[in-house]
């Protein structure tokens, strides 16, 4: 039987059946059935196939009145999930009969339209987008790495972004720092970047801090969920690492030089390694020249900066596997990526830092 009662659906759900609300986001609004996943009808088959839902799964479909779910159930049965059913009367009857419901994170109609491509993704969906909209990020550096990262963070709807940098836009920046423009030459980078970000997404808050990052800047990262590092010097990198360690903030670190880039997530509160585990000491300047001295291909920071935004999305929404204990390196000469595994160094200062954090939490 394709159509089943809500009572039967609840019984099957308690036995492990998967309940899916297939209504459109505007129909779901802020309420769905308890335990239901939300996958709009037009994304149903593709999402279930992509996630590899086992064919012996009992699938229960819920729409507004029971009509669409009945048709969809018949389709799923033919497509490889033979134990699929439609809940009679849909969510309207479910609600009228006082069946259990749960709140869905609120997104305004305009947000639902703006982030429609995210809402269709099972990896993000309404829950993930709501997390992005509530997230708070600090970004150190509004240059080569910060430019692409900031643009994508703004586009994806990260609710609060604090930009920290003390430089002004120079013409030599424009070969790679695509968030700035000829019109903002001489303007503080954070101001220039914020204007562009707000132009892309006026629904987010961008706070600008014209300041060089140093050990006195702990207050600038204390109230955020994570930190993105696009600094251009070793002093800031070690300082930021130590502050993130002390404050328990994940640090998404990127670095570039010439044709190479690298990326990792340090100081993860779950116990991942820190920057000092990977690089205990600063190399001499002849082995680590600056981009000013050695140059950098414009698209290299573009590539790494966008990947930093990706790591932020993963950490905020919870999908995928963040680069904790993994260093991703990029070589633009052959467009190759490589991954190096590394773990917390028992002799590193971060062991002590974590112990202090645990004591503080206790």
């Amino acid at each position, binding site marked *: 039987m394709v159509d089943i009662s809500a009572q039967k659906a609840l019984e099957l759900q308690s036995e492990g059946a998967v309940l899916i609300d297939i209504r459109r986001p505007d129909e779901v609004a802020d309420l769905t059935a308890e335990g239901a996943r939300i996958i709009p009808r037009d994304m149903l088959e593709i999402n279930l196939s992509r996630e590899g839902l086992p064919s012996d799964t009992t699938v229960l479909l819920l729409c507004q009145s029971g009509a669409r779910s009945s048709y969809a159930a018949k389709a799923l049965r033919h497509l490889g999930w033979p134990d699929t059913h439609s809940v009679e009367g849909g969510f309207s009857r479910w609600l009228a009969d006082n069946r259990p419901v749960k709140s869905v994170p609120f997104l305004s109609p305009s947000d639902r339209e703006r982030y429609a491509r995210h809402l269709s993704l099972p990896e993000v969906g309404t829950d993930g987008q709501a997390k992005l909209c509530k997230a708070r990020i600090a970004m150190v*550096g509004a*240059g*080569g*790495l*910060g430019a692409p990262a900031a643009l994508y963070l703004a586009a994806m709807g990260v609710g609060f972004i604090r930009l920290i940098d003390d430089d002004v836009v120079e013409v030599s920046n424009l070969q790679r720092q695509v968030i700035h423009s000829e019109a903002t030459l001489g303007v503080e980078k954070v101001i220039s970047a914020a204007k562009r970000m707000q132009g892309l997404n006026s629904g987010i808050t961008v706070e600008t801090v014209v300041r060089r990052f140093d050990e006195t800047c702990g207050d600038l990262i204390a109230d955020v969920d994570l930190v993105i*590092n*696009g*600094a*251009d*010097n*070793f002093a800031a*990198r070690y300082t930021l690492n130590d502050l993130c360690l002390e404050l328990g903030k994940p640090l998404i670190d*990127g*670095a*570039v*030089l*010439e*044709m*190479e880039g*690298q990326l990792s997530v340090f100081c993860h509160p779950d116990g991942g390694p820190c920057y000092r*585990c*990977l*690089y*205990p*000491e*600063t*190399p*001499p300047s*002849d*082995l*680590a*020249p*600056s*981009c000013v001295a*050695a140059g*950098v291909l414009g698209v290299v*920071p573009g590539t790494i900066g966008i990947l930093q935004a990706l790591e932020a999305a993963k950490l905020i929404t919870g999908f995928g596997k963040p680069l904790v204990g993994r*260093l991703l390196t990029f070589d633009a000469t052959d467009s190759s990526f490589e*991954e*190096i*595994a*590394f*773990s917390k*160094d*028992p*002799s590193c200062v971060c062991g002590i830092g974590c112990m202090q954090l645990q004591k503080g939490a206790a």
Partner: protein
Amino acid sequence: MARLKLPKALARYTNGTTEIEVSETTLKDTLAKLTNDYNLGTAILRDDGSIQPYIGVVVGGELLNKAALTDPSSIEVTNKEIQLKTAFAGG
């Protein structure tokens, strides 16, 4: 044989070469030969033969930590890929 990959920062010492085949069987001997062949001075190894702390050593895709590097003569590298890594800070 082992394959040694160098960071571009060291390429200035090796006439631009960033990949070298080596026949040494331990990490210590491999780095000593590299230093001698290319006159690397103390860029990789200190005067006492220990590895500079700013050089990351990756063998078989995994970064070796300080403890593992205290005795590089015990690290077998035959038929493995060795990478030397240095940090860079461009943003």
